[in-house]
C-alpha cells in the first residue's frame, strides 16, 4: 500500500488513472477508514486530496457556491452565507455523524460513498447541485443525482475525482429544507428522508420546486411528480396531502430491521409535507 498527498488535481488524477491495483481517494476518511478496518477494501494506493490547492475552500462566486471536495461538514455549518442561502443543504450535512465525524466528513465523500441513506444527498439533489468532475479527459459538470448508480457504486470512471459541489446563486423568495427519520435523537442512519427546495413568486405561489427522497430506493429519488403538485400552489392542506400521497407512491423501499416497506412509504409522505412546509416558510411564504 502506498499513501500519497498530491499538491495538484492533475497529479492526483494522473496517479489514480495510472494505478495498477485498487486506488482510493481520501478526504475525511470517515467511510474509507471504516471500510479498511473492516477488511471490505484494501487499497493499493491512497490518494489524500486535502493538500490540493482550493479543495479545502468554500468559494462564493457570481454563479453561487463552490464547496471543495475536502471541506469538512463542520465548516459548512460555520459558513454564514452558505447557511443563509442553502439552509436545507447545511442542515443535512450537519446531521452526518458526531462532532468528531463532522470535523472530517465531506459532502463529496457522502455522495461518492453512494449509500441510499446518505443524509446530504437528498438535500443536494433537491437543491439542484452539480458536481465538478476532473478526470484524464478533462473537466465536466454533472448533476449530483447522476453520481450514485447503486448502493456503493458511482458513475465516476477510473481516474476521475469530484473536485467540488456547485450550488446555484439563490433566486429571491427561495428556501430549502431537509428532514430524516431515525429512531434515536442523533447519530443514526436515515430510515427515510426528504429534501425540498422551493422558489415562490411575489404572491407566495410556488414557482419552482424540487423534491428528493432518501433511503426509499437503491439511490436517491428525484420525484418530479411531487414537484408538479407543489408548483402553482400556496401549500394549502389539500396540496400537502397530494404531495404526501405522490411521495409515498414514488418510494421503492426495502424491508429491513430499520423499517418496513409500509412504514417507509408512510413516513416519506409525512417528511415531504413537513420539509415542504419549512422550505415554504424559509422562502418567505405565509
Amino acid at each position, binding site marked *: *500500500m502506498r499513501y500519497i*498527498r498530491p499538491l495538484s488535481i492533475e497529479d492526483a488524477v494522473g496517479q489514480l488513472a495510472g494505478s495498477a491495483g485498487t486506488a482510493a481517494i481520501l478526504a475525511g476518511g470517515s467511510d474509507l477508514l471504516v471500510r479498511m478496518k473492516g477488511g471490505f477494501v484494501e487499497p493499493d494506493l491512497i490518494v*489524500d486530496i486535502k493538500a490540493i490547492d482550493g479543495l479545502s475552500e468554500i468559494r462564493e462566486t457570481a454563479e453561487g457556491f463552490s464547496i471543495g471536495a475536502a471541506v469538512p461538514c463542520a465548516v459548512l455549518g460555520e459558513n454564514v452565507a452558505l447557511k443563509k442561502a442553502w439552509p436545507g443543504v447545511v442542515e443535512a450535512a450537519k446531521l452526518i455523524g458526531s*462532532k*468528531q*465525524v463532522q*470535523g472530517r466528513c465531506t459532502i463529496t465523500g457522502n455522495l461518492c460513498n453512494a449509500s441510499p441513506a446518505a443524509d446530504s444527498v437528498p438535500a443536494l439533489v433537491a437543491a439542484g447541485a452539480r458536481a465538478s468532475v476532473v478526470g484524464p479527459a478533462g473537466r465536466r459538470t454533472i448533476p449530483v443525482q447522476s453520481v450514485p448508480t447503486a448502493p456503493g457504486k458511482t458513475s465516476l470512471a477510473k481516474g476521475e475525482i469530484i473536485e467540488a459541489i456547485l450550488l446555484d446563486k439563490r433566486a429571491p423568495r427561495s428556501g430549502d429544507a431537509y428532514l430524516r427519520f431515525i429512531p434515536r435523537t442523533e447519530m443514526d442512519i436515515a430510515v427515510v428522508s426528504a429534501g425540498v427546495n422551493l422558489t415562490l413568486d411575489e404572491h407566495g405561489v410556488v414557482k419552482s420546486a424540487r423534491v428528493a427522497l432518501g433511503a426509499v430506493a437503491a439511490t436517491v429519488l428525484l420525484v418530479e411528480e411531487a414537484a408538479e403538485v407543489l408548483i402553482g400552489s400556496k401549500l394549502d392542506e389539500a396540496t400537502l396531502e397530494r404531495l404526501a400521497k405522490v411521495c409515498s407512491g414514488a418510494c421503492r423501499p426495502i424491508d429491513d430491521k430499520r423499517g418496513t416497506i409500509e412504514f417507509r412509504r408512510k413516513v416519506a409522505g409525512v417528511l415531504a409535507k413537513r420539509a415542504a412546509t419549512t422550505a415554504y416558510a424559509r422562502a418567505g411564504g405565509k
Partner: protein
Amino acid sequence: MAGVAVTTTINGDAIEYLCQPDETLLDVLRDRLGLTGAKEGCGTGDCGACSIILDDRLVCSCLVLGAEAEGRRVETIEGMAQGDTLHPLQQKFLEHAALQCGICTPGFLVAAKDLLAKNPDPTEEEIRFGLAGNLCRCTGYDKIVRAVQDAASVMKGA
C-alpha cells in the same frame, strides 16, 4: 509496505515518526509514541474514546491515518493538565465522580475542552448534543454533564 516519514506537532512538541501507510493516528499515538491516553473503543468512529484535536477540530484519531498528521497540530489528553495542575474539566470530573471505569474519560475530556473552547457557556442541551459522539456505558451521562457545566462556570470566572 514502505514506511511514511511524518513531521508533526503533538501537544506543542515537534515530533517525527515513521508509520505504515494504513496505520491510524490512534495506533501511532499509542503504539509508537507511548501516548496511551486516547483509547480504542470501537475503532470505527462511533464511541469517541480516541478523540483528539487536529488543527483545532475535534476528530476521532481512529479515523485519521498517521500519515495525515504531516505538518499539522495534534492535541491529546496528555497535553491537557499543566504539569501537576489539572485542567478545570479534569478537576470537575473528579469532584463530580463523572467517571467509573475511566475508558471513555480521556475522550470526554478532550471533546468537552473543544466544546467549551467554541461555546464557553453551553446549555445542558448543547452539552448533551456536543458530547453525543462520546459513549459512556457506566455513568448514565448526568454526572458528566454536571461536571462540564461546573467547569464552564469556573472557566468563565477565571
